[in-house]
């Protein structure tokens, strides 16, 4: 609960984005480019394709890396700076690699009243990763603390990748979900 440490100052300041990890992949597949172009045609202004294109980039690249942002800018034909600004504004674009199963635990007030803080601790304990620390060594798990997922009535609420799992009141349900992930019953990250 301590505030984030202030980054050390250096004589050579980093350019925006240089703190972000890079991805191996550098360019979109032709299908992705076609998909983005179809989205651009739907809206009166091609700029509107920025958000959907970043989702496509996240799917293709695994996370939104600098190369992914550049690819989005190039495909839509907009400045790189704009895409960087948008990608860093929204929390659902992961700017660093995540695990195959990305656990997002809501700890906002309604969930906290029903034990979300303890649930988050249990998720961290069972997966062996802490929020914001990147995926576990085997690449299976990553954990993020998020704000309200609109599951207040069935709190505490956990979202794995893009699917919401409700009623996660106890540890048993958490184990159940994790086992289902291991068995491959849930779509892994990257769709």
């Amino acid at each position, binding site marked *: *609960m*301590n*505030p*984030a440490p202030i980054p050390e100052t250096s004589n050579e300041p980093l350019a925006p984005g240089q703190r972000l990890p890079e991805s191996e992949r550098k360019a979109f597949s032709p299908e992705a480019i076609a998909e983005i172009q179809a989205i651009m045609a*739907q*809206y*009166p*202004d091609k*700029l*509107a*394709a*920025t*958000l*959907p294109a*970043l*989702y496509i980039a996240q799917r293709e690249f695994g996370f939104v890396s600098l190369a992914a942002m550049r690819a989005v800018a190039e495909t839509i034909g907009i400045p790189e700076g*704009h895409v960087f*600004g*948008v990608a860093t*504004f*929204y*929390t*659902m*674009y992961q700017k660093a690699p995540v695990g195959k199963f990305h656990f997002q635990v809501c*700890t*906002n*007030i*309604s969930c*906290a*009243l*029903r*034990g*979300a*803080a*303890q649930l*988050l*601790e249990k998720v*961290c304990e069972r997966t062996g990763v*802490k*929020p*914001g620390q990147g995926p576990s060594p085997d690449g299976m798990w990553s954990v993020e*603390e*998020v*704000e*309200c*997922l*609109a*599951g*207040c*009535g*069935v*709190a505490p609420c956990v*979202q794995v990748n*893009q*699917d*919401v799992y*409700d*009623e996660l009141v106890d540890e048993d349900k958490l184990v159940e979900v994790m086992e289902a992930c291991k068995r491959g019953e849930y779509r892994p990250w990257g769709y």
Partner: protein
Amino acid sequence: MVAIRTKPDHHTYTFPGFGSEKFPNLLLRGAGDLNNWHLPVYEQQHEGYVAMRKALQMEPVAVTEEVKASGLRGRGGAGFPAGLKWSFMPKDTPERKLTRYLVCNGDEGEPGTFKDRVILEYNPHQLIEGMIIGGWAMQCAMGYVYIRGEFLWLIEKLEAAIQQARDAGYLGKNILGTGWDYDILVYRGAGAYICGEETALLNSLEGRRGEPRVKPPFPAAKGAFGQPTTVNNVETLAAVPPILRMGGGEYAKIGSPKNSGTRIFGVSGHVKRPGIYELPMGTPMNFLVEELAGGSSTGRKIKAIIPGGASCPMLDEKDFDVPMDFDNLKARGSMGGSGGLIVMDESVCIVQATLRLIRFYAHESCGQCTPCREGCNWMQLILNRIEHGQGRMEDLDLLASLTPRIGMRTLCPLGDAACGPMDSALQKFRHEFEHHIIHKTCYAQGSKLLSSVGAH
């Protein structure tokens, strides 16, 4: 076509007497039934698209008048009359033809609120019908539904429902022979609470950072893609078909004066039956919490209730009898907000609860206006200090002096929203803050709202 997720959820949607004349069921028709989103079910069982056919035979202005007569107030939080908002849209003149848009705000992010999700899950066609009626009333060229990114499965469902409506000829070119072209597109947000603010939402819809715009110009003059736009909440638009079906005058009889109609209340926190309850406006809060939601789930007394989503000032025991509508809640120093009740029992440390709420605002502030960006962070730091036993008595005055410097001094209401819980907690539960400072521990022993693993 993608497979539509059919996972049952555990919310309570109904109660004895729901659907009778006293508690009309206008928005939650078929809630709980996962097949309810199909067009044939909606048409055959829930008078689906009757209102749309009626509206399309009326003059657009007459439709707006009908909504005005109903007294429907926006369900997003501010409670602005919906019909009046519609009438602000500029009309075509012989010299100038305008492209108008209708935008539906489904960026449900207010902690404690989960009503739009239920409409999208069980009754998406009622929203589509509302959007067609609204689009006709304002003669819009396009409708956009902006839905928060976390609701991917609901986006897939809504898109499938829109396709059903398109196949039935309710969307597309020359709808039902009126010569009017209209379609609906779904836009997926990407996780920013601020995008629930209408101008931030428009920026986000245009593919920009979700920062609120300077008003004026208001969206009715210059909204999405520079064109006249109206932004309405999901629940507001879903309330339009019943209004057209029963007539505005008849709808206005439901609820309390100047707060007509039914509203979806979500109850969460320490209650036995958390869930979604549709009630006429003006229903007393203790009836909802005690009778319908079953009262305290822990056996302890209820200490505080946040009556309309996290932004609303908390109410303590003496106000639990407040009739739930915009005006009565305002008179008691709170807000109608988005209709999400958060119930806290005696075991809750108000300092922790306030810190958790303020941390949310500090995290979600878009950073555009200094009072909100800096002020929320400072409130978080000071509350953190108090929570960890390092508070000073003068911190309380410092906190109280911060809120008037944030509230009403920002472009959008996020700053004001952060002040609601802060001010009310300080006024109503000051002794808990003082206890924390003097004894360096919670007044309510054993309250665990904060996790030991780091924050965001």
